[in-house]
């Protein structure tokens, strides 16, 4: 199926569903994405996807908390160390839990701890997963899913 016919089909399906695919929904999608970033799962809950929202709301904060408990570190934003900078950016995906941990002085990490790298992995991966969830919430908000 060509791009043109696919686009026209998408427009027709959206029109039959009673809404246009463009501008009016983008605000809702952006709000859902922002909520999903701030509190993992909140975007899906706001969009009425209760099951997904509850699972994300439980799983990601647990993963983040385990990362802190395993003495992982919230990586600093140090541009002289590109990998550390990327790790910091990934952990920032955790949203409000990240900010609370940073403000509360948690996540300093302990390099000599046997679980240090495990903790880092939990912190980084939970942030990256939440970024994927933000994108999914955006798609759901736009009506693509």
């Amino acid at each position, binding site marked *: 199926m060509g791009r043109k016919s696919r686009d026209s089909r998408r427009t027709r399906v959206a029109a039959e569903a009673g809404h246009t695919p463009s501008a009016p929904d983008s605000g809702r999608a952006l709000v859902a994405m922002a909520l999903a970033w701030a509190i993992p799962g909140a975007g899906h809950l706001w969009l009425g996807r209760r099951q997904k929202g509850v*699972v994300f709301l439980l799983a990601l904060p647990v993963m983040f908390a385990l990362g802190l408990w395993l003495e992982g570190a919230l990586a600093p934003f140090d541009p002289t160390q590109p990998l550390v900078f990327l790790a910091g950016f990934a952990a920032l995906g955790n949203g409000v839990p990240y900010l609370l941990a940073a403000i509360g002085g948690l996540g*300093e990490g302990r390099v000599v701890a046997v679980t240090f790298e495990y903790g880092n992995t939990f912190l980084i991966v939970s942030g990256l997963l939440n970024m994927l969830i933000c994108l999914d919430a955006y798609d759901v908000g736009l009506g693509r899913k």
Partner: protein
Amino acid sequence: MTWGSAGNERTHLMASHLLVMLVFAALVSLVFAVLLKDEPVEQVRLGGLLFGAFVGTGVVLGWILFPFPL
């Protein structure tokens, strides 16, 4: 990577590598399955598949790397 402090020694309840891997695999599989599938049956199927793949790959890689010193 080099960050974090070298503070006081603390004993860990979760020092088992296998247990940490199982918890990690379970949480990541759960999130991916719920994210990618809408039906509960499909979610369980994909989640189980991902969990098995994570754990199986980890165990196999562990045995392959076993003879190599750190």
